[in-house]
C-alpha cells in the first residue's frame, strides 16, 4: 500500500467522513452545492474568456468585465473546493483508484497554472491592450486553454461515477 493510499484510507475512515458517506441528506446536498457553485465559478470565468476571444462584450475593456466578476468567481471557487473536499473525504479510498478523478485533478492543476501564467504575463500588461476588441495572441491562447481545461474538469467530474467500482 502506497503512502498516498494510506493517507486516503485514513481520511476515508475518519468519523466525519464516514458520517457523510452514510448520510441521507448531507451527501446529496454537498453534491448539489458542488454543481451549483461550478456554474458560478466556471460561468464567470467563461465570460472573461469569451471576452478575451472577442466573442462577447467586445467593446468593453477587459478589466471592466473581469474585476466585478472576480468576487463571484472566488465565492464559487471557495464553495467548490470546500464541498469537493468533503465529498472526496467521504470516498477517499475509492477516489484514489478512480482514473476520472485523477485526470480531473491533473486538469484542475493545469487550469490553475494557466490562470497564474496569464495573470503574471499578458494580464499584467492589460493597460496597453485591455480596450482592444482582439487582445494579444498570448491572452487569446490562455482564454482558449481555460475554456478547454474547465470543460475537461467538468466532464471528468461527471465521469467519476462511471469508473466507480466496488470490490
Amino acid at each position, binding site marked *: 500500500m502506497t503512502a498516498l493510499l494510506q493517507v486516503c484510507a485514513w481520511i476515508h475512515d475518519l468519523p466525519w467522513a464516514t458520517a*457523510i*458517506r*452514510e*448520510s*441521507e*441528506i448531507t*451527501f*446529496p446536498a454537498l*453534491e*448539489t452545492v458542488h*454543481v451549483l457553485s461550478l456554474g458560478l465559478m466556471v460561468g464567470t470565468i467563461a465570460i472573461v474568456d*469569451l471576452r478575451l476571444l472577442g*466573442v462577447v462584450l467586445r467593446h468593453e475593456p477587459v478589466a471592466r468585465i473581469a474585476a466585478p466578476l472576480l468576487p463571484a468567481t472566488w465565492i464559487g471557487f471557495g464553495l467548490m473546493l470546500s464541498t469537493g473536499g468533503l465529498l472526496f473525504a*467521504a*470516498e477517499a479510498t475509492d477516489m484514489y483508484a478512480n482514473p476520472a478523478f485523477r485526470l480531473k485533478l491533473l486538469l484542475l492543476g493545469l487550469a490553475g497554472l494557466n490562470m497564474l501564467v496569464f495573470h503574471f504575463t499578458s494580464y499584467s500588461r492589460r493597460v496597453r491592450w485591455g480596450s482592444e476588441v482582439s487582445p494579444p495572441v498570448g491572452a487569446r491562447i490562455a482564454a482558449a486553454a481555460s475554456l478547454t481545461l474547465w*470543460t475537461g474538469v*467538468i*466532464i471528468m467530474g*461527471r465521469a467519476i*461515477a*462511471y469508473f*466507480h467500482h*466496488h*470490490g
Partner: protein
Amino acid sequence: MRTKLLAAGGALILSLGALLSPAAAHHSFSAEFDGSKPARLIGRITKVEWTNPHSYFYVDVKNSRGEIVNWACEGGGPGALSRRGWKKGDVKIGDQLVVDGYLAKDGSHTIDARRVTLPDGRSIYGGTPGDGGPGDGDVKNK
C-alpha cells in the same frame, strides 16, 4: 458570425446540460447493468455498506455446483432506501436476503438490487432514483 457563435455556445451548454441532467442518479442503470439479464439471488449477508452514492449488500449464494459465491448487490443510497422504509440497521450480518435484479455487464458477481426482500418479509424497491433502469419512474417506488 456572432449569432452563429452564440448558437454554437448555446448548443454546447445544452449538450453539457444533457450530460449532467440525471442529477439524482449517480450513474445510469445501463452504464453498469444488463436489463436483459434478470436474476434472483438468495443468500446470507456477509457485509453491509450503507453508503453514498450507492449502498452495497454482500451475500453468500450457493451456485448450481454447490459452491458458495460472494455477490455484491448494488442499491440506492441511504436517503433513497430510507424514504422507502428500509432504515440503517434493518439488516444484520447473517440475515437472509432475497434479491431480484439484473446482472452486471462485465460478468462480475455484481447485481443491481432492483427489489430486495428483507428478513421481516418486507419487499423494498432498491433501485437508484432516476437511473432509467427497470421500475424507475414508478411513483410508488420514490
